[in-house]
C-alpha cells in the first residue's frame, strides 16, 4: 500500500504494549489513538533513567542531581520548540495537558488589561466542531466577563461553514479559537486562512493542535496562530504534560495564571513581581519527568519524520474509509476523502448503538471509542447522540483495519441487523 511507513514492523516493536494479549489470548488491535497514543520504549526508558539516576527538583537546586534534572527538563523545552518550529524556546510553556493550556489562555484574557482583555461587548468565536476543552473554557470566560460567545457552524459534509466569516469575525471579535484537526470528524481546518481574517480585525488566534500535533508537521508561525496548544499523551508522550506555545509579545502582555513557586521574581507579604516567560506561567514544581518524557517522544516522532507519519495516516485512513464503505449500514461522519482529514473516523452503524458496537469489537480485541468523544455539539449538529470512532496512528497496520471491518460485519450478524 502506497504511503505506509516502510519500517512499520520495526516501529511496532518499539511499542511494548502492542505485544499485549487480551482476554481469550487475542492480540490487541488498538484503534483508539486519538483518545491516547501508545508509548515507545524509548519514552518509558528515558523517564525511568531519570527517576533512577537523576531525579531532583529543578532550577532551585544547586547540586549535581539538580543540575542534571534542570538540564534534562530545559532540554525537553528545546526539543518541543524544535518540534513545532517555535522562534524561541521561551515561548514554550509546559502545562498539565491541552485543557489546562486552553484554560490558562481563557483565564488570562479575562484578567488582562489593555488590548488583550476580554470584557463586556467583546466577542469570542469558536466552532461547532470543538472538543469540550475548547468550548467550556470560553463559555466560562464569556459568562464571567459579559462577553459574547459565537461560533462557526458546520456543513453537511463536516467542514467549517465559512460563508459568514466576515460577519462572524468582526471588529468586536477579540479571540478566535479553533481546532486544527477535529477529533470527531477528522476534518483538517484552514487555520491560516481563518487566522488571516482574524488578524485583519485585530483578534488573537488560538489553535487547538491536540489532534494536529500527532500527525501533521507543525510550524507555529506558518500556522497563523498567536497561541497554540497540544497535549503530550497524544504524541506518544506521557500523561500529565501539555504545551502552550505563544508569540512572545502575546505571552508577555498576558498576566500570570497561577501563583506560586517558580513563577515569581520576588515576593513580599504585601505584593509580588513575576518572572519572565516561560516561568511566569509555570507555577509550582512542573511535571518534570513528564516534560522529559515528552522531549523523548517528540524526538522519536521527529526521527520517524512527521511527513512520513502523515503519509502513513493518510494511507491507513483511506484504506479504512474504503473498508467502512463496504459494511452495509455504516455512515461516516465528516469528510469522505482521506486527503482532507486526519486519522480519526467516527461512524454510525444502522441498528446498533455505538456502545454495543464497541463491546462486540472489544470481545475480538479491537479497541475503539464509543460515545460523544467530548464533542457533544458536533454530534448534535449531525443529529446523533453518540458514534463509534476508530483512530489510527504510526503503528497501525492495514491488517488491523481488516480486523475492524470484519468485527463490524460480525456485529451486524450478532445483533441480527440487515
Amino acid at each position, binding site marked *: 500500500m502506497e504511503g505506509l511507513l516502510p519500517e512499520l514492523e520495526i516501529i511496532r516493536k518499539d511499542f511494548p504494549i502492542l505485544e499485549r494479549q487480551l482476554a481469550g489470548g487475542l492480540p490487541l488491535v488498538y484503534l483508539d489513538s486519538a483518545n491516547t497514543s501508545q508509548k515507545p520504549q524509548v519514552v518509558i526508558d528515558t523517564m525511568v533513567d531519570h527517576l533512577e539516576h537523576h531525579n531532583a527538583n529543578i532550577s532551585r537546586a544547586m547540586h549535581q542531581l539538580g543540575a542534571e534534572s534542570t538540564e534534562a527538563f530545559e532540554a525537553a523545552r528545546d526539543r518541543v520548540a524544535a518540534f513545532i518550529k517555535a522562534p524561541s524556546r521561551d515561548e514554550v510553556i509546559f502545562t498539565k495537558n491541552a485543557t489546562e493550556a486552553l484554560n490558562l489562555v481563557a483565564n488570562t484574557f479575562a484578567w488582562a488589561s489593555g488590548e488583550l482583555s476580554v470584557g463586556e461587548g467583546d466577542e469570542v468565536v469558536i466552532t461547532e466542531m470543538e472538543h469540550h476543552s475548547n468550548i467550556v473554557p470560553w463559555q466560562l470566560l464569556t459568562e464571567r466577563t459579559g462577553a459574547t460567545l459565537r461560533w462557526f457552524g458546520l456543513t453537511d459534509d463536516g467542514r467549517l461553514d465559512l460563508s459568514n466569516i466576515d460577519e462572524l469575525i468582526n471588529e468586536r471579535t477579540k479571540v478566535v479559537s479553533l481546532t486544527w484537526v477535529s477529533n470527531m470528524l477528522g476534518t483538517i481546518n484552514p487555520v491560516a486562512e481563518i487566522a488571516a481574517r482574524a488578524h485583519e480585525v485585530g483578534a488573537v488566534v488560538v489553535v487547538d493542535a491536540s489532534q494536529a500535533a500527532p500527525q501533521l508537521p507543525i510550524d507555529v508561525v506558518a500556522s497563523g496562530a498567536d497561541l497554540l496548544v497540544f497535549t503530550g499523551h497524544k504524541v506518544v508522550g506521557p500523561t500529565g504534560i501539555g504545551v502552550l506555545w505563544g508569540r512572545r509579545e502575546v505571552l508577555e502582555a498576558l498576566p500570570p495564571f497561577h501563583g506560586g513557586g517558580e513563577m515569581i521574581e520576588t515576593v513580599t507579604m504585601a505584593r509580588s513581581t513575576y518572572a519572565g516567560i516561560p516561568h511566569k506561567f509555570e507555577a509550582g514544581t512542573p511535571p518534570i519527568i513528564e516534560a522529559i518524557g515528552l522531549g523523548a517522544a517528540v524526538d522519536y516522532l521527529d526521527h520517524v519524520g512527521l511527513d512520513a507519519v502523515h503519509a502513513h495516516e493518510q494511507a491507513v485512513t483511506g484504506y479504512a474509509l474504503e473498508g467502512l464503505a463496504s459494511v452495509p449500514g455504516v455512515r461516516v461522519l465528516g469528510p469522505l476523502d482521506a486527503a482532507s482529514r486526519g486519522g480519526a473516523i467516527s461512524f454510525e452503524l444502522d441498528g446498533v*448503538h*455505538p456502545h*454495543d458496537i464497541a463491546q462486540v469489537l472489544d470481545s475480538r480485541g479491537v479497541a475503539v471509542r464509543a*460515545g460523544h468523544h467530548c464533542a457533544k455539539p458536533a454530534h448534535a449538529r449531525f443529529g446523533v*447522540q453518540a458514534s463509534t470512532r476508530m483512530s489510527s496512528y504510526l503503528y497501525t497496520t492495514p491488517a488491523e483495519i481488516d480486523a475492524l471491518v470484519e468485527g463490524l460485519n460480525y456485529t451486524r450478524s450478532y*445483533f441480527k441487523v440487515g
Partner: protein
Amino acid sequence: MDAALDSLYQEIILDHYKHPHHAGLRDPFEAEVHHVNPTCGDEVTLRVHLSEGVVDDVSYDAVGCSISQASTSVMTDLLIGKPVDEAMQIHQTFLELMQGKGQVEPDEDVLEDGIAFAGVAKFPARVKCALLSWMAFKDATSQTLSKETS
C-alpha cells in the same frame, strides 16, 4: 469470545431492548428528572407518579445502548405497582448486583428479568449504562417524597 459476549447480551436483555415496556412520558407525575451518562451521552427523561405510598407509574423517554434501554424497561416492570419502600429495596438489590463485580448471586424472586443483568456486572464500563435509569428513578422518587413532607 461469544461466551463472554453472550453473558452480557442475554436474550432477555435483547428482547427488552427491541421491545421496551412502559416507554413514553405520561401524566400525571410528581417529579420529572433528566439524567445523563457524561462519558457516553446516554440520556433519560423519567417521570414518577406516586400515590398513597405506591409507585403508580414510571414513564420515560430514553436514548442509549441496549443495556441502558433494557435496564429501563426491566425496571418499570419491576417497580410499577410496588409500594415505595419495596421499590427502594429492589433498587438497592439491583445496585448491589451491579456493583458486585460479578460476585453477587442475583435473587430471581426479587429481580425477575433483572437477573439477566448479572453478566453486566463483569463489564465495569457498562455498569453505568445499566444504572442510568435506576438512578433517575431514585432521584425522582426522593424529590417527590421531599415535596410531600415539605
